[in-house]
């Protein structure tokens, strides 16, 4: 869950400097700091599972890269927004000519967010909005509590997938498919 920590606003550069002075996990949303609390175990299991499934597919097809949770992406400079997805896939083309030693200055192609019980609806909606506005082509919101996945794309109605449904990579990861139930099984 994100907790708003203080009122002053930061630029991306100031935020970068701050991240080197603190052990806290932070996001920057419209200039304001948000603290990211450690996730519960189920959240970690689902995010881990997804990372393995997507990672295997992306590597075998040599499509690009999968990044783990906490990787910062600059979604907007003004107002400054740096978000960290639970998992993201970035195609080869988007990574090229970028400074990978800092926050990524490009948007991922695919982002997955795993919902924690403490997440409010509007905090999740805001993340989805930020990712899509920044150019993410496909956003999956995975809710372990209801074993559902919500699929968001710009200008398209939200799709709700349940356990028996298939999660598809669509045109973002052509050929990728897995049962939704697989994400929640161990």
């Amino acid at each position: 869950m994100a907790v708003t920590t203080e009122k002053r606003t930061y630029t991306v550069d100031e935020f970068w400097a701050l991240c080197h002075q603190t052990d806290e996990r932070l996001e920057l949303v419209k200039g304001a700091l948000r603290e990211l609390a450690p996730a519960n175990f189920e959240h970690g299991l689902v995010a881990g599972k997804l990372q393995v499934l997507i990672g295997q597919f992306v590597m075998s097809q040599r499509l690009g890269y999968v990044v783990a949770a906490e990787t910062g992406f600059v979604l907007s400079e003004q107002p400054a927004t740096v978000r960290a997805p639970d998992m993201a896939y970035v195609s080869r083309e988007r990574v090229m000519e970028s400074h990978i030693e800092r926050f990524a200055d490009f948007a991922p192609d695919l982002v997955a967010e795993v919902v924690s019980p403490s997440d409010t609806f509007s905090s999740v909606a805001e993340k989805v909005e930020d990712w899509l506005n920044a150019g993410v082509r496909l956003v999956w919101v995975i809710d372990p509590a209801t074993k559902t996945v919500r699929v968001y794309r710009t200008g398209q109605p939200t799709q709700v997938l349940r356990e028996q449904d298939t999660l598809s990579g669509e045109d973002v990861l052509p050929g990728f498919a897995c049962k939704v139930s697989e994400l929640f099984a161990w």
Partner: protein
Amino acid sequence: MAVVTGKRRHTIEDLWVLSHQTDKRLELVRGELRELTPTGWEHGRVCARIARLLDVYASGGQRGVALGAETGCVLHAGDEPTVRAADAAFIRRERLPEQLPVGYAQIVPDLVVEVTSPSDTYAMVAEKVNDWLLAGAQMVWVVDTSSRQVSVHRPNQSVRVYGESDTLSGEDVLPDFACKVSELFAW
């Protein structure tokens, strides 16, 4: 917050009869009864403010009708009967029937407002938004009393989130309606 009350499947008629036999506030979601517990103070205050803004906008029926909390609307008849109650809603004049219905409205409001409580989970709210949009609502506002944000959901559009300093517009659903988001939460 909704509490699942029983697994037996119910019809819309069952709900109507039940609602006259009990003091409980119930919704019917795909044949399943859900109990609505009384909300907190902040929720009630914000609902009242929104209902007032919508009622003023309605201008005595010239633009349409504002509905207050707990008004039952039939979202889906048939094999997955669903009757939901929005926290506030607006139906445009041209969509109103000659006579207002006695039972649950068979008309899905043009605008639906859901005010979230801190105990509402992501999935509960997402399911409601989805149900309203699929049933034909043109716009859903989710008003979050804790973060003081409003997310705007429309069919075939990406979600937009507005903060206190932003202006909430009625867009083409409630033309000329505009208010500061902060106004919804101001004392």
